[in-house]
């Protein structure tokens, strides 16, 4: 890394760190905004972006060069493979191989809930996740008894077509092919990180953790079923959240490495639940997860999807400086009033505006939000949703970055 690239990387990292530590950095840290638009900007299809490592890498580098921020926007490549991550949680070295499903991986595995552009979908679509009921209500006891074994023996064969029969040659062949494919992908990734380093970004990324109830809702029972389970089998559901906590933590730690010291925790059921249900079934194991991650040397970045307004106060139960609260529809100004001095707040840019507004209005909008959110520090500017569609007007994206440059100095 050239000296100035190194210095730039250090400055960027320091900015983000200061905000998480509730201080005022030199400038407001800005995560950047990427997503599907990265491929469009490079003139390639979403299919190419999802299946061709080299084109993907070139597209990202081009975008990051033209739109620099404090974190490289790597885009949304692939979907999580969370049941497999849990099934293999005792093998940390396999984490990079089984934790994500991208285009080529899906060709090998055939993951039931994944659909990719250029395969099942139009070549310019986003990849899709369509979950179903993979576990029946009768199976709670098995899940509770041994979640890792249960995920491996029962759920994985239902989700991954190549693993339908773990004793069949097909499954072993898929595993071997997966390793070969990921070696190729790994080389491309290393090349990308090298180029990113030259642009002043330290290598790194985010680990991931799930609220135990979300893991059960998204990956196993399907959300509407789970909501009914809360009333029909409350004790089993609660026991299940406690049972999956440990292996979920293990998976999260498996992803830890140089530059990977933060766990992203995207919340799904928060908006669905009444405070009573949230406090009984959701928050206890999520809170414990956050505290345990801290003991294991990781900060949490919780993405409070949807409206979290009804549960905001519970965040104060965590120790000050615990990590970052990233908001989608909850008004960050309102959150700041409650959380200032206790929790770093992230968000602030309504992606809908970036898509449909004008450069002049966006300039005004960013000025206003920064004016309100920067004072006192502990704020990271980010889009409320990390995915700009292909059609996003480039002049609008440019306007956002320029406005951050103009108004982001402390």
């Amino acid at each position, binding site marked *: 890394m050239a000296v100035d690239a190194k210095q730039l990387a250090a400055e960027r990292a320091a900015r983000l760190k200061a905000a998480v530590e509730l201080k005022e950095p030199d400038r407001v840290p800005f995560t950047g905004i990427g997503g*599907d638009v990265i491929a469009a900007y490079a003139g390639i299809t979403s299919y190419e972006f999802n299946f061709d490592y080299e084109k993907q890498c070139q597209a990202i580098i081009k975008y990051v060069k033209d739109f620099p921020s404090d974190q490289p926007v790597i885009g949304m490549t692939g979907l999580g493979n969370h049941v497999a991550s849990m099934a293999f949680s005792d093998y940390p070295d396999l984490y990079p191989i089984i934790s994500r499903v991208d285009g080529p991986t899906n060709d090998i595995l055939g993951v039931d809930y994944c659909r990719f552009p250029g395969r099942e979908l139009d070549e310019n*679509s*986003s990849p*899709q*996740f*369509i979950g179903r009921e993979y576990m029946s209500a009768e199976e709670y006891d098995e899940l509770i008894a041994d979640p890792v074994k249960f995920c491996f023996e029962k759920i994985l064969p239902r989700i991954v077509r190549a693993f339908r029969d773990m004793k069949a040659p097909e499954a072993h062949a898929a595993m071997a092919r997966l390793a070969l494919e990921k070696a190729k992908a790994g080389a491309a990734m290393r090349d990308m990180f090298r180029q990113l380093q030259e642009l002043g970004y330290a290598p790194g990324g985010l680990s991931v953790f799930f609220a135990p109830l979300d893991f059960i809702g998204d990956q196993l029972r399907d*959300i*509407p079923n789970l*909501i*009914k389970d*809360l*009333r029909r089998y409350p004790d089993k559901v609660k026991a299940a959240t406690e049972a999956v906590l440990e292996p979920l933590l293990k998976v999260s730690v498996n992803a830890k490495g140089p530059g990977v010291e933060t766990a992203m925790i995207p919340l799904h059921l928060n*908006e*669905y*639940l*009444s405070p009573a*249900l949230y406090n009984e079934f959701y928050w206890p194991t999520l809170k414990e997860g956050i505290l345990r991650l801290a003991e294991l040397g990781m900060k949490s970045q919780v993405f409070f999807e*949807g409206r979290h307004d*009804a549960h905001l106060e519970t965040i104060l139960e965590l120790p000050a400086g615990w990590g970052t609260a990233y908001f989608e*529809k909850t008004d960050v100004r309102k959150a700041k009033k409650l959380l200032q001095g206790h929790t770093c707040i992230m968000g602030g840019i309504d*992606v*809908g505006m970036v*898509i*449909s507004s004008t450069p002049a209005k966006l300039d005004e909008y960013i000025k206003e939000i920064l004016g309100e959110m920067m004072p006192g520090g502990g704020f990271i500017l980010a889009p409320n*949703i990390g*995915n*700009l*569609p*292909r*059609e996003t007007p480039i002049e609008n994206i440019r306007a956002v970055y320029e406005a951050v440059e103009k108004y982001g100095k402390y």
Partner: protein
Amino acid sequence: MREELLRSFVDMDEQEAVRIARELVETEGGAVAVLDTCKEAMEEVGRLFEAGEYFLSELIAAGDMFNQIMEFTLPKLQGEEVASLGTMVLGTVQGDVHNIGKDIFKVMAEASGINVIDIGIDVPHEKFVEAIKEHKPELVGMCCLITLGVDSMKRTIEVIKEAGLRDDIKIIIGGGRVSQAVMEHVGADAWADDAARGVRLSKELLGKE
């Protein structure tokens, strides 16, 4: 018994509500009474949701209770005159596969007396057009939760226009990604990001409120 049914339904006491409904439905004129009471209960649940006292967990549970009760009530209504406020074709737009919000809205709309034709998720533009031609609805409902769905809605409405069907229908959009600005951008007639408001506006569009 109607009072008890209403109360246990609104209080989310599933077992009790289903038990009373089963009993009531066997009495003279009981099926109509069950239907009316459950509609009233759904409306009350919607009000509590709009007031911030109930959450999505309650809407889902209420929808499920409603469906359970209707399963044994509707067959008993054969021959009875069930007033319909009008017909709506409803789907999640192309590229978007979220269905929970749409399904909640659907039950609430049905409970309010709207006849809903659900055409599913990730619905291509042409499929909306075909469904409009086939079912001749007064209303079309589009659900959209992802940003990419915004352009999908816009294109769907254009295709409906090109087919010469736009003037025959009113279009209401819903889901997490909609707003006044999105409504204007795509050219719809109304928007709602919560089901209770969506039902209210749908009735207004039908001229029934």
